[in-house]
């Protein structure tokens, strides 16, 4: 593929991903509302939120906060580009990890106790889900024989059939990534606060808008990975992803927030256990 084509695809992905993410979040809030027997905001509400935030006064505590917010966004954009261009999946995973670390540092670089507690919890979240994500990529490697994202359909059959247990573990990871109960510890969606918004508490106005747009990218990435579990037929993949999203929203409404110790123990026993079992199947073939 020529460089020009690659550049165009990358640009397209960078513009499309946040749009998809925003739409997904809007649908998320609507479905949430309907599950709670209320009307809910309009579908484009996340867009209105970000536009409003861009117009607010940007109050901050120090300059490095802003640096970390930009790094957080930039690296999520890069991870999206890497995946869309079919590059190495472990590198994409590491880039997403860098983005999360930048967010953690952004929370820790201010002398705000809520922010720092949120960052500590975010570190615990990373510890909970990183191994499962790497095992997911290893599982994809075992199926297709390649670490490159463009070879994801090399085996000819959808990943859900070879990696069913890893899919279940990934659903748990999705709950953490999308900040849904029972794992919305570091910062929460909407009004479900425990430590007063946690990591993002000291960001305001346009800088909070950066974080919101980054969360759109993250939502789109999660959606992409979920859809990739049926990469042979993208329509089925998208349907699968939508079903997974609805399940996440359902569990968000059913569960209460739990402690980070519970999350660590649960993810490392159930999540890792499911992933390792699935990999044992793949290795034994």
């Amino acid at each position, binding site marked *: 593929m020529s460089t020009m084509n690659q550049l165009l695809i990358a640009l397209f992905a960078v513009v499309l991903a946040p749009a998809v993410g925003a739409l997904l979040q809007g649908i998320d*809030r609507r479905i949430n*509302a309907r599950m*709670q*027997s*209320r*009307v*809910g*905001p*309009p579908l484009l*509400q996340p867009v*209105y*939120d970000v*536009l*409003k935030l*861009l*117009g*607010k*006064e*940007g*109050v901050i505590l120090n300059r490095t906060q802003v640096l970390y917010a930009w790094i957080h966004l930039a690296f999520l954009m890069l991870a999206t580009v890497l995946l869309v261009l079919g590059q190495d999946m472990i590198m994409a995973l590491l880039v997403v990890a860098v983005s999360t670390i930048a967010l953690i540092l952004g929370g820790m670089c201010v002398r705000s106790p*809520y922010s720092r507690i949120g960052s500590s919890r975010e570190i615990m979240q990373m510890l909970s889900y990183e191994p499962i994500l790497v095992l997911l990529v290893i599982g994809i490697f075992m199926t297709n024989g390649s670490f490159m994202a463009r070879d994801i359909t090399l085996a000819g059959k959808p990943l859900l059939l070879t990696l069913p247990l890893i899919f279940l573990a990934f659903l748990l990871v999705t709950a953490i990534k999308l900040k849904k109960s029972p794992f919305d510890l570091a910062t929460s969606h*909407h*009004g479900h*606060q425990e430590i*007063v*918004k946690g990591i*993002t*508490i*000291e*960001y*305001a*106005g346009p800088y*909070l808008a950066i974080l919101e747009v980054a969360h759109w990218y993250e939502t789109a990435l999660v959606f992409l990975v979920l859809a990739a579990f049926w990469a042979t037929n993208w329509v089925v993949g998208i349907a699968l992803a939508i079903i997974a999203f609805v399940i996440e929203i359902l569990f968000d409404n059913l569960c209460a927030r739990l402690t980070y110790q519970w999350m660590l123990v649960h993810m490392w026993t159930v999540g890792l256990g499911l992933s390792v079992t699935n990999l044992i199947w793949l290795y034994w073939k």
Partner: protein
Amino acid sequence: MLGCIDRSPWIVHYNCNSCNGCDIELLACLTPLYDLERFGVLHVGNPKHADILVVTGSVNHRNARVLKNVYDQMPGPKMVVAMGACSATGGIFADCYNVLGGIEKVVPVDVWIPGCPPKPEAIIDGMVKAVGIWKSNPAFQAQGGAARISLTRRPPAAPVQPAAAPQPQQQPQPKEGSPDGRQSS
């Protein structure tokens, strides 16, 4: 960009020394029965994310400083909504030794919602009017804003400088707008 502020007004709620009656009614507005979220209103917990400061309860020496602090931490453009009789004038506690009066002694108020406590319908009405200020009054786009709308027909009392320690024997000013729970129209 600011044109969207009326579609996504985020509120932070501060309880000065309310009996919690107004707070419960505000939270009731966020429940499915009344659902403020359909206007895009989100109850965020900290002032840095919020556009509207909803205050219940009256001002006393201790929370005057705290209320000012919370108001100052909010990024502009911002608005203050005084909910209930206590935050308008001090309510039934206006004569207490520690109560300085309504919250307008400390922060500039834009919308008053009377009631003790106000019904959720009145609260929604107040919120919609608050959002309407942003929509209709371009002068308000600047920080702070000067337009003030009251949901009662009678204008509020002029702000009085808070005394350092009000003596209990001091004769309080006759208050306008008695806290009798009557709703506005």
